[in-house]
């Protein structure tokens, strides 16, 4: 689901739905990290600031 949501996010880049598509990536990113801390979520780090979220919640690479 993390990979599929990332794929959807890439497809919706530049549309009004981009930010919420990224939130979906983040949703599955958090769930995946809780299950396995080694999971990498590069799209989240790359585009995190687009959502104007605090850097304190920036995921580690």
């Amino acid at each position, binding site marked *: *689901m993390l990979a*599929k949501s990332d794929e959807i996010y890439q497809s*919706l880049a530049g549309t009004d739905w981009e930010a*919420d*598509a990224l*939130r979906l990536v983040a*949703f599955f990113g958090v769930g995946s990290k*809780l*299950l396995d801390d080694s999971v990498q979520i590069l799209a989240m780090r790359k585009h995190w600031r687009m959502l104007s979220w605090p850097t304190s919640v920036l995921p580690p690479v």
Partner: protein
Amino acid sequence: MILSPLFPSLKYGEDYTQYIPRGHYTKSGALKAYFKSMMWYGRMTFILKGLEPAMARGDTRAAVLLVHAIRSATVNGAPALDAWTGLYSPTAFFVGRSDDLTIFQYGDVIDQVYGSNATLSALANESMLDAFIIEASKLPAPKILGMVIQFTDDEEEATKGMRFMGQRFVPDAFIFRQLIFRNVGT
């Protein structure tokens, strides 16, 4: 309670103490991880209308995309929906069905509003999203309060939404809920 950067529609934030493993989930690292992950998927709500409608609209966009994602994803070569059902069904048997709206209920409304097999570009449509919200509003609200709200808030608007692995309808929790404010005086 701390505000969630991922779910700003939760006006009063999230209770992160709920993520501390308890009971037999403390017995191994794998069980602790399972507990925290399932708690995340079971608690975080894609609110339909909410107390902050603009933010809830963003939640609903994400929920529509989530349903599209699980319908099109595969897990080890099998449909992701089958994997989800394989996880949900045993827990529904032992604990109870979801008290929150599910991916299947949202999926039915998506098919009704957008037509079956709608493409991603067809789904990402703001006017169709309005129609989706109207139709999804007809779905039932949770019977058990599973998040913090103010006593002045409209409970249905504040709590109705989709959860990926929703909180279960547990009869004793429902009965207890009927015996406290707002159903009885203080």
